[in-house]
């Protein structure tokens, strides 16, 4: 199902396909006309995608078919061994992680995991973790430290689960602990915002030496809908909230919240996952190479300085 702003493009694409089919079956030469339409399509795409509103980008970030953490691992890594559980309370399918090889070297990976259909989404609680999911992430951080391997976190959550069960088991506590644990990693830590970066639930695995973000991902303190519900008292004002929150990749790069924007193909990663993942691979590879040169102490200090500098205020 196309997103709202994708509809004209999809319609034009299907018209072109129809004409091509007709030309092929009838033998009528329509190559000039088709070429013209293709140019028109290219223009329409670049106009649409060059001027995406923030709210449209949020929709791309949530688009079905957008690569999830497990897709990224499957495509960019080998030898993945999924590890489960927090050794304390439970296994949380909203967070996945384990060991894998990236470009031949062992890394520890973790990420929020959305479902690819409704059934899987229910099982994975729409990638909204409970405390045990974050404790699993912390266990994987321990492992990265233990074996001196880089830690890579993929962020893709609307937020930590806001429910009774999560509060009972210390959602706030575990998010704080996970932030602290990740800050203490003595190995290179990279966080990549894949799709949605919803608040503390995202930041819990976001304390990288470098924070990368896919071009159409969003990352902020609150979702546009919740923000609109509070400030405009109307969740339908989400588009306005998205604008106000400056939650897109270019915004965040300007604010220093992220370090690098990973380009997506026209229309977003869901329209061409392979291309998006190739860009992600390159960015990851370059980032890990850069961080690989730093000692554990330098990595700690680098991470401290990175987050220490964030915020804007006036000296009194």
């Amino acid at each position, binding site marked *: 199902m196309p997103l709202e702003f994708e509809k004209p493009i999809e319609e034009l694409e299907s018209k072109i396909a129809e004409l091509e089919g007709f030309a092929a079956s009838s033998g009528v030469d329509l190559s000039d006309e088709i070429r013209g339409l293709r140019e028109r399509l290219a223009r329409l795409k670049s106009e649409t995608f060059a001027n995406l509103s923030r709210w449209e980008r949020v929709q791309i970030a949530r688009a079905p078919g957008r690569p999830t953490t497990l897709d990224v691992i499957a495509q960019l890594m080998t030898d993945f061994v999924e590890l489960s559980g927090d050794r304390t309370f439970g296994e949380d399918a909203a967070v996945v992680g384990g060991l894998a090889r990236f470009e031949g070297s062992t890394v520890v990976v973790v990420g929020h995991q959305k479902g690819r259909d409704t059934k899987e989404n229910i099982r994975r609680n729409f990638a909204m973790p409970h405390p045990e999911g974050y404790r699993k992430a912390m266990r994987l951080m321990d492992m990265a430290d233990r074996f001196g391997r880089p830690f890579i976190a993929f962020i893709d959550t609307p937020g*930590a689960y806001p429910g009774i069960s999560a509060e009972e088991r210390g959602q706030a506590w575990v998010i704080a602990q996970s*932030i602290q644990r990740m800050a203490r990693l003595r190995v290179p830590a990279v966080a990549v915002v894949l799709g949605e970066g919803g608040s503390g639930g995202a*930041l819990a695995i976001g304390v990288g030496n470098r924070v990368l973000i896919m071009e159409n991902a969003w990352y902020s303190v609150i979702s546009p809908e919740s923000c609109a519900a509070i400030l405009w008292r109307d969740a339908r004002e989400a588009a306005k*909230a998205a604008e106000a*929150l400056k*939650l897109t990749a270019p915004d965040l790069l300007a604010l220093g919240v992220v370090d690098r924007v990973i380009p997506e193909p026209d229309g977003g990663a869901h329209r061409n996952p392979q291309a998006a993942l190739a860009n992600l691979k390159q960015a990851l590879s370059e980032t890990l190479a850069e961080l690989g040169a730093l000692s554990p102490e330098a990595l700690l200090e680098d991470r401290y300085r990175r987050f220490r500098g*964030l*915020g804007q205020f*006036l000296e009194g």
Partner: protein
Amino acid sequence: MALERLFRRRRAQGEARDIPELWAKCPKCDAQIYKKDLEHNLYVCPKCSHHLRMPASKRIEMLADPGSFEETTRLRPTDPLGFVDTEPYPKRLERYQREAGRPDAIVGGRCTIGGVPSILLVMDYAFAGGSMGSVVGEEITRGIEQAAQEERAVVIVAVSGGARMQEAALSLMQMAKTTLALDRLWARRLPYVSILTDPTTGGVTASFAALADVIFAEPGALIGFAGPRVIKQTIRQELPEGFQRAEFLLKHGMVDQVVDRRRLKAQVAQVLGLLHPARVRL
């Protein structure tokens, strides 16, 4: 603080009503309390021990040894995102500043507590519900760094609706910044005591407030990550009695003690005395 704001607003509206200014009503037991008595009782209802919200300045009076407090907070907020909702963020800031009588939702500085050299940081609910933006994050971070440099303990009184929406991702980053700063205390073995008061939710609970060596909560305080309204929307049911209250948190292993405000200073001083490097041996 709710009471103070109420009175200030009434004065601002020019209503000359003497009686309501002298008396307050306990929101729990409805008792009429003479305002001076309430203040002397540290804003705890003398009838039912309900803990009313306490102004930030009174918190400092209560916790710092008399005459020892020297304010160091001084940053002012700005508008990094050009945030506009139903009104521009700078307009809101002006109103908050007028209402709270300070530049942002925090006040703090050097002091001694039970004789222990400390940095005391107190959030102010009167300013935008104690929300955390860049200024709160930076002041907390500076306070912690200063404590590490000067071998002081850290005591933070939390009260907050969470991270401040109008600074969006920058507010979120304050959770990481303050958390990272805490590690600077470690090498010097300096203690950090967190006091959770009504309400402490969102990004403040989920960062520095939850990471103290010792965590005290005030009786009845609402404490959690998600706010009760959000949870109610999620589960579409009423929340159980006592959910997210201090006593609930104690039962679920998240806080060390629920401490009556009238014992709080003594309790904090005792912990600092036990843990501050200059005092571990007597």
